[in-house]
């Protein structure tokens, strides 16, 4: 047993955080028309989009490394579709046995493909005719949505044979998150994207979803870390009654509780990422549900505390506090909030107990 980041892992975090802070927007207004291409190219050039993939496919590192990168980008509030158009489609294509050239186009940053997610199961959606008018925006019966799909020219769905196909996407509309977008898939508009491999097995789909959950949780850990840091800096400098507000116990205890939440959240996310490559599918999936449920629950409350500590400024364009909260809201809904995952955990554990495990 040795549950600690290595030197290399710490350096990876520092390097990606540094790039994202240097090349990201310097103010809240800067998010509104941000051009993400330079940061995207740097991430691709550094190999970040292929983390956890086999070297034969142009990948490097581990899923844990991908999780570290996701955390660093969350912490910096980086407006790049690292998960949605980078690691997640790359791993899905690899699972289907797609042409290495297609995978290379994704991990080299040349082509942004998103993944259309089924709003009920949070697995890659199946290719079906458009659901028609009156369909709900989210939840069962809603059309497939591609999360974190900025700049993508198509989204991966599952075709009739269970293999991947690519379809078009609606244009991005501004959502609550200033750093990433959700786009509706256009299932009636298939796009030729080359050889995308064969049918995905049920286990491959489960593994991919566990991967996606683990990496979204890692992003949330970063958002929590960055948000808490902002709140601590503010509380240390903002003065009322002649002293820094961070000297008041009401503020200290609120923020101490948030640090405890980040610590617990990080531990669950780090384990979930490790388990994806080192433990069996059942265990990895349970760890993924666990971290997504935990981060969604404590993460939202942490970001609310960050806004609270900033007072009125926290809800204005002068301050990044609400940008953390909004990214957290996106992540919380991305692939299911804590209510959905707690239900899965309860079902899983009931079934296992019934089998005497």
């Amino acid at each position, binding site marked *: 047993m040795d549950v*600690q980041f290595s030197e290399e892992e710490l350096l990876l975090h520092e390097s990606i955080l540094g790039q994202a802070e240097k090349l990201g927007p310097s103010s809240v207004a800067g998010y509104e028309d941000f051009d993400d291409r330079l940061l995207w190219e740097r991430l691709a050039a550094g190999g970040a989009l292929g983390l956890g993939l086999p070297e034969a496919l142009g990948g490097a590192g581990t899923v844990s490394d991908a999780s570290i990168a996701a955390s660093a980008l969350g912490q910096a509030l980086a407006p790049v579709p690292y998960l949605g158009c980078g690691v997640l489609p790359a791993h899905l294509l690899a699972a289907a046995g797609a042409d290495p050239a297609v995978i290379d186009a994704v991990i080299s940053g040349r082509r942004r493909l998103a993944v259309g997610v089924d709003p009920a199961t949070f697995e890659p959606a199946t290719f079906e005719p458009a659901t028609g008018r009156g369909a709900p925006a989210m939840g069962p019966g809603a059309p497939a949505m591609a999360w974190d799909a900025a700049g993508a020219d198509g989204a991966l769905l599952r075709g009739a044979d269970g293999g991947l196909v690519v379809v078009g996407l609606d244009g991005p509309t501004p959502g609550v998150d200033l750093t990433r977008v959700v786009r509706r898939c256009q299932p009636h508009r298939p796009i030729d994207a080359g050889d995308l491999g064969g049918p995905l097995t049920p286990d491959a789909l489960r593994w991919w979803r566990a991967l996606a959950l683990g990496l979204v949780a890692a992003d949330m850990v970063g958002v929590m870390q960055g948000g808490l840091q902002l709140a601590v800096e503010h509380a240390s400098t903002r003065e009322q009654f002649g002293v820094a507000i961070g000297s008041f116990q009401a*503020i200290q205890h609120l923020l101490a509780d948030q640090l405890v939440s980040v610590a617990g959240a990080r531990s669950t996310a780090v384990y979930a990422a*490790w388990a994806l490559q080192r433990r069996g599918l059942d265990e990895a999936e349970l760890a993924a549900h666990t971290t997504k449920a*935990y981060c969604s629950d404590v993460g939202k409350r942490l970001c609310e505390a960050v806004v609270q500590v900033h007072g009125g400024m926290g809800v204005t364009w002068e301050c990044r506090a609400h940008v953390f909260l909004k990214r957290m809201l996106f992540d919380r809904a991305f692939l299911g909030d804590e209510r959905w995952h707690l239900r899965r955990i309860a079902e899983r554990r009931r079934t296992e107990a019934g089998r005497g495990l």
Partner: protein
Amino acid sequence: MDYDDSPDEAAFRLELRAWLAANDPGPAPPISDSLAEHEYKKRWQQALYAGGWLGLSWPEEYGGRGLNPFYEAILNEELGAAGVSHAAPPVGWLGRAILNYGTEEQRRRHLPGLLSGETSWCQGFSEPGAGSDLASLRTFAERGHDTYTITGQKLWTSGAQFADWCLLLARTARDGPKHQGISAFTVRMSTPGITVRPFKQAWGGTRFCEVFFDGAEVPVGDRVGEEGDGWPLATVVLAYERGPSELGVIATYRAELRDLIGPSAGDPVAEDALARAYVAVEACRLHLLESLTRRVKGETPGPGSSIDKLLMIRAEQALGTLELDATAASGLTGEDWATPSRYLWSRAASVYGGSEQIQRNIVAQRILGLPRR
């Protein structure tokens, strides 16, 4: 990053499992019967010691096995998984104080008995006027020619009525900064001038005691460390008390979580609350493994152990409430006293070993670096 056992750790775990299967101590008595609880734990400690499972990370010359602390974590995990009480937790942290601060003679005199369960110990730290503000303690040790004369009162002294020895904090300087005038002593509980008064707790037992010192004489040679070393010693003891030693408790939580699956099945509200508690326990368990790794690598426990403790409180109290809710009515009618006892004990989790509020102060000021007033 590796959560798996090394080959040696895995072999140890298997050997331990086999031993536990053959040496089941039987069900623990209810926490409302403190004498039975004490005797049960003592017997179990002696059995574990005889089996070679205690003092795993202690140096061999004092009866230990000289292994790294991961082995203690494995021991605690397996004890919890087997549904048996974890092994006399104070042994670890009191022993740590004597190991770190005691003389060679003191280590040889006290550690083997502490480990084997031949002697029982209590921890005389808190006082009526010094709970969260421990450094304000007023029990005084007056230096004579070759003895100290102890006068004062201790409170919350767990198991004092059964103890042979007490690790005592007392003031040895009347003036100067309050953190610097404190010294530590090992005190024989049969010393004339010591009176123990157990008091009854909300859950029925008498785990805690008051201890009165009325001119009890303690040999100078029973001081642990130099005069004035008491505060750093106490800090070490409390940090060990808070940290990964909780891993044994975690294993117990996991067993309790499994036991609650049946009673909550089919009730979505209860099932979701149970899943939430499961997630809280996982966060705590996984975080403790990180703290344990730091300890194995030689880091002395510091303010980070307050994070461990706060995560533990969240998990413990979520579980206590779940168990209460599952059987609320039978507790009120008196048909089931064990469950409300379990719940009431969980409320003590945010007080013992330094209250939740003190832990938050430590996290806010010593980790987040927020300004003190």
